[in-house]
């Protein structure tokens, strides 16, 4: 974006146009007693070169996963972002993607969104996807809203092993939706389908995360069946990067699939902005929040794209809209589209398998160094909880001083896990880095 300064001649022309003698004249209505006199106590202006050096020194205090070794995950992951993602996103017509208020003029962006929806449907095994949501937490609240209206029920069930931030956002939205939230505790790192079955009676939906907040696989088809038997909608919160190796939620009878899209194509970026995805069976299409792009033909019979079902959006339906988040995450969702298209099903599977085998290597190294897995009987994907024998926050702080971030302290959110660290192992980690982790944690 170009920066246009105002010259003295511009200023005089503008003042002449409005009949003012000086800029000072414009403030003459403000009583002198409330006006600030004198100069502001600011440091002298820096030259461009000095300013650049100053900002660079501030930026250098930031640390990211390209400079230090990070096993931090818990919802936001250090997956590799191929160069093609940024190359495509930096095209001007995509970089300025914003809420399309005159959408059909912008066929390119609508086509991109349509392709994004197609990819999300293929990934989740669902019939219809929206054009993306704000993030992986708000789409869970959106799912509750769909479920409330589809079932006419006023209770939602969330497994305790669902990401704590997701649960918090659901609990924040629920009172406004007139919904009661019931949590089902985990048992040894996963959820008992019978406990879900009991809680699901009269529930609008059951939300579970798979793999869950401990990295463990849930008995996902059994949880979905427990929900479906009670005529509650089964809502799976899934990691898109797991769907190359794990079954798609649509294939085990979930009604809605949601998730945080960041891991697929977006950087960690200090946890935002990112995008959430929401896909559902076709019976919920009219309840889905946000935009949906449809494919059609124009008057000349040519293929074209339109925003469809807009009548349920906030600029038309006001307080009865299906969603009232105005923030548009299209650019980040398009990063997801480019990433997933670039990889394709085969590479997505390979990335998943690489994560799994590196995570398995890390488990072996850590247990070999005398540490204990918190849920050793569970199967995991790319994350696992390990007990470090003392307060995890202290261990994390000490490791950080050596340039290693061992993971997330589960004691922040879960009782009885003060000594547990959730270790996330993506394809970006190396066996050398994992060896360093084992050395640091076993000290």
């Amino acid at each position: 974006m170009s920066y246009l300064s105002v010259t003295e001649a511009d200023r005089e022309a503008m003042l002449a146009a409005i009949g003012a003698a000086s800029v000072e004249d414009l403030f003459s209505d403000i009583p002198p007693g409330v006006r600030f006199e004198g100069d502001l106590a600011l440091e002298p202006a820096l030259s461009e070169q000095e300013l650049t050096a100053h900002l660079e020194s501030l930026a250098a205090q930031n640390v990211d996963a390209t400079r230090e070794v990070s096993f931090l995950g818990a919802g936001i992951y250090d997956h590799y972002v191929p160069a093609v993602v940024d190359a495509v996103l930096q095209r001007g017509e995509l970089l300025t993607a914003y809420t399309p208020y005159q959408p059909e003029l912008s066929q390119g962006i609508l086509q991109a969104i349509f392709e994004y929806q197609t990819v999300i449907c293929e990934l989740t095994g669902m019939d219809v996807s929206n054009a993306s949501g704000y993030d992986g937490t708000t789409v869970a609240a959106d799912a509750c809203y769909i479920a409330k209206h589809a079932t006419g029920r006023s209770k939602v069930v969330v497994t305790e092993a669902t990401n704590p931030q997701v649960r918090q956002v659901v609990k924040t939205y629920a009172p406004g939706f007139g919904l009661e939230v019931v949590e089902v505790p985990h048992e040894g790192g996963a959820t008992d389908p019978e406990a879900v079955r009991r809680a699901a009676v009269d529930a609008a939906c059951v939300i579970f995360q798979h793999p869950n907040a401990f990295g463990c696989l849930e008995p996902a088809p059994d949880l979905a069946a427990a929900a479906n038997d009670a005529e509650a909608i089964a809502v799976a919160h899934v990691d898109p990067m797991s769907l190359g190796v794990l079954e798609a939620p649509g294939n085990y009878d979930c009604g809605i699939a949601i998730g945080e899209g960041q891991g697929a194509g977006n950087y960690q970026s200090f946890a935002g902005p990112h995008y959430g995805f929401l896909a559902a069976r076709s019976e919920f299409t009219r309840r889905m929040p946000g935009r949906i792009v449809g494919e059609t033909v124009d008057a000349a019979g040519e293929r074209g794209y339109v925003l469809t079902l807009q009548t349920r959006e906030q600029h038309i339906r006001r307080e009865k809209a299906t969603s009232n988040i105005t923030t548009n995450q299209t650019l980040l969702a398009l990063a997801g589209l480019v990433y997933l298209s670039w990889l394709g099903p085969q590479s997505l599977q390979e990335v998943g398998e690489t994560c799994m085998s590196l995570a398995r290597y890390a488990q072996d190294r850590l247990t070999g160094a005398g540490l204990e897995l918190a849920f050793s009987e569970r199967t995991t994907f790319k994350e696992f909880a390990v007990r470090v024998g003392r307060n995890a926050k202290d261990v994390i702080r000490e490791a950080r001083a050596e340039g290693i971030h061992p993971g997330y302290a589960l004691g922040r959110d879960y009782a009885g896990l003060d000594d547990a660290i959730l270790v996330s192992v993506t394809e970006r980690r190396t066996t050398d880095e994992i060896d360093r982790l084992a050395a640091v944690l076993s000290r």
Partner: protein
Amino acid sequence: MSATESYPGELKYHREHDWARIDGEEAVLGITWFAQDALGELVHYEAPEGGAAVTKDQPYGEVESVKAVSDVIAPLSGEVLEVNGKVVDAPETVNEDPYGEGWLVRIRLSDPSEVQSLLDVEAYRQVVAEQ
């Protein structure tokens, strides 16, 4: 093909632009010519389930046109006996014949005395004139 403006004298009206045709303990409900004209061509009718309870002055379904979605307000309370499947399949039936083929639900009244609170055609015409 849209119907021309009319408000039959034998119907009872609700100021949210709904009508009721009372038949003893039952009533057939729909939306008025004014309502369908304001919405434009209907593309979807979100009907209540058979057996559902409807409450006077509360929404019991939704009608959606190409430009808006609107709640349908129940003029009377009762239980849904029948949903007009023809409107579910072809919502534009409401535009073509709002008081005949385009009815929305048939209900059993839970409180027939509520009928007295509805508007007659002259009072409803006044409501329309004020819009």
